[in-house]
């Protein structure tokens, strides 16, 4: 079907957009340059909502997403609720890993931020390796949410068996454990409420012809160790102090991470997974550290996802130009590499025939530039990176919260003129 052909029915539009995206991912020339809409708070701000409102008001966020998608007409979009709409649930949990707008003195119109800290001590590696689930339940959950502290009292089941299992029920009746369990139920109900609104919005947009760009989220093993367990300082020092333990932990994660990702994607009935990376960029680790602690484990995660028919969209944050020769080692036509500051032209050279490239209109341009700047940049991308297909237009790390609407509109409108 040519780009010029007028498709009118929503289902035909849906198929056309889905095909455009898959053609790009599988390195064929699509009819025209595909686009994805990915943002955290831009969609909300575009419709006059504060960041706090986006995190708390499921209905208004759904309306904002609908409006943004209809106005911009991307070929696929990320469901924003799954990225931001968990304010009420975090309140129920007394959640501690994020600071968020309108909570504890933070102003209403700033995004949430992750609190980099040590959530697993260096001397807890053995405990994690022996029983990751037990560690998460008894130690990690109580640390990251005040309301879940009593979970530390739950029985340690690998060592509780036979009639001791029956007797272990006593723990669940303790007043503080009972309160924690009730909190879990309330938090679960809140998430169900949010999901119901999101699911309705996704269905409505599907009925209007717009597919989803992500059906789940996954991680790189090193990022899990550094961001969520050891903290950035702890993880960097572990490269020297606890090298073998860190490698063993990542071995476990290499098996566990795809399992959760595949389950999430299958539950949504889709085939796309989003994987934001934080520690892979140039400058953070040496090339040798990258090929020891980051890439081999992450490559296994990618292969496990690809094996079951899932297309990973890997967001390589920062500049990853020096990693290109290493990270091109994936099966052709199965992966999307979403770049922020990586040299897109070098990326095209290195990844041609292997990986579909996505990105990278700079945040600074969308915030402080003009529609003309944006169009010129997009044209250069299309001419060079888009050559022969294998390219999806997006902003550097999605649309920045502060982007000017006219710049964002210019980007999506320009893509429609980029016909193969």
């Amino acid at each position, binding site marked *: 079907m040519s780009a010029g052909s007028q498709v009118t029915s929503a289902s035909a539009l849906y198929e056309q957009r889905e095909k455009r995206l898959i053609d790009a991912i599988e390195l064929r020339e699509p009819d025209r340059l595909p686009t994805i809409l990915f943002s955290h708070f831009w969609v909300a701000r575009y419709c006059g909502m504060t960041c706090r409102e986006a995190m708390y008001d499921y209905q208004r966020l759904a309306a904002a997403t609908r409006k943004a998608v209809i106005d911009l007409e991307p070929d696929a979009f990320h469901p924003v609720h799954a990225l931001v709409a968990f304010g009420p649930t975090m309140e129920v949990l007394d959640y501690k890993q994020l*600071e968020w707008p309108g909570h504890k003195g933070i*102003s209403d119109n*700033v*995004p949430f*931020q992750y*609190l*980099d800290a040590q959530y697993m001590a260096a001397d807890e590696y053995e405990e994690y390796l022996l029983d990751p689930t037990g560690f998460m339940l008894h130690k990690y959950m109580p640390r990251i949410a005040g309301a879940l502290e009593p979970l530390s009292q739950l029985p340690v089941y690998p060592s509780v068996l036979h009639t001791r299992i029956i007797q272990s029920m006593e723990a669940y009746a303790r007043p503080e454990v009972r309160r924690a369990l009730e909190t879990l139920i309330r938090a679960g109900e809140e998430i169900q409420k949010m999901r119901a609104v999101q699911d309705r919005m996704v269905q409505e947009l599907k009925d209007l012809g717009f597919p989803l760009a992500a059906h789940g989220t996954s991680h790189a093993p090193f990022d899990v160790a550094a961001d969520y367990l050891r903290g*950035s*300082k702890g993880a*960097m*020092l572990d*490269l*020297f*102090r606890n090298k073998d333990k860190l490698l063993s932990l990542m071995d476990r994660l290499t098996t566990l991470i795809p399992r959760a990702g595949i389950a999430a994607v299958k539950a949504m009935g889709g085939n796309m997974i989003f994987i934001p990376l934080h520690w892979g960029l140039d*400058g*953070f*680790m*040496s090339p040798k*550290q990258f090929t020891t602690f980051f890439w081999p484990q992450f490559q296994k995660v990618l292969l496990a996802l690809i094996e079951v028919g899932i297309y990973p969209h890997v967001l390589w944050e920062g*500049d990853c130009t020096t990693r290109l020769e290493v990270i091109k080692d994936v099966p052709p036509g199965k992966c999307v590499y979403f770049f*922020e*500051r990586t040299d897109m032209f070098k990326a095209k050279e290195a990844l041609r025939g292997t990986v579909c490239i996505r990105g990278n209109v*700079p*945040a*600074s*341009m969308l*915030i*402080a*530039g003009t529609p003309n700047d944006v169009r010129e940049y997009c044209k250069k991308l299309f001419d060079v990176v888009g050559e022969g297909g294998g390219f999806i237009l997006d902003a*550097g*790390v999605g649309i*920045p*919260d*502060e982007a000017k609407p006219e710049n964002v509109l210019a980007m999506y409108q320009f893509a429609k003129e980029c016909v193969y």
Partner: protein
Amino acid sequence: MDDKGKQLIQQIADMQEEDSVKLARDMLDSGYDPIKLLAHCREAMEIVGKRYAEGEYFLPELMLAGEMLKAIGDMAKPLIKQDISGGKTAGTVIIGTVQGDLHDIGKNIVTFMLEINGFKVIDLGIDVPVANFVDSIKEHKPQVVGLSGFLTLAFDAMKTTVEAIQEAGLRDNIKIMIGGGQVDETVRNYTGADAFGLNAMDAVSLCKQWVPA
């Protein structure tokens, strides 16, 4: 230089944490001059900084070097009776992550590299209100102010900070550099800063250029 001193410098520069801390302990226990020992540490840090600048070392090495320096400093400093704080510095830099942003990995690495290069760095921390920058400039009279930010919200916070410095009548005497995450020439122009940097070495080069020895 004595053999022990040479060995200590080499061990620190080569990231031998346990060996270097143990050797420093032994040296101090056997009466080694703590001031001399700290001078060796500074020399080792210069090698670490050089290896970072040359692309041999990366963030993990800088982090470990900082840990070794702290461990050895904590042992040596209590043994020093005279005041050693009055040494000559290459210049003064005030640094901080701008209001609203909590990220500090980049800022900390820039601070570390500037200190290795002889600058006195006043680190105001993260989520720094505009007024704190202004007050600190009045108090410390730096030659350079470094504004750090990872999130895009930092663009406006940097702009507001630069404007506040201007309004306080302090802009003419200082240079302002910005860095972190997504900054580039467009952001530099938007914020009114004098320069932007993509890594810690850029920060060192800018400060050296602005504050001639």
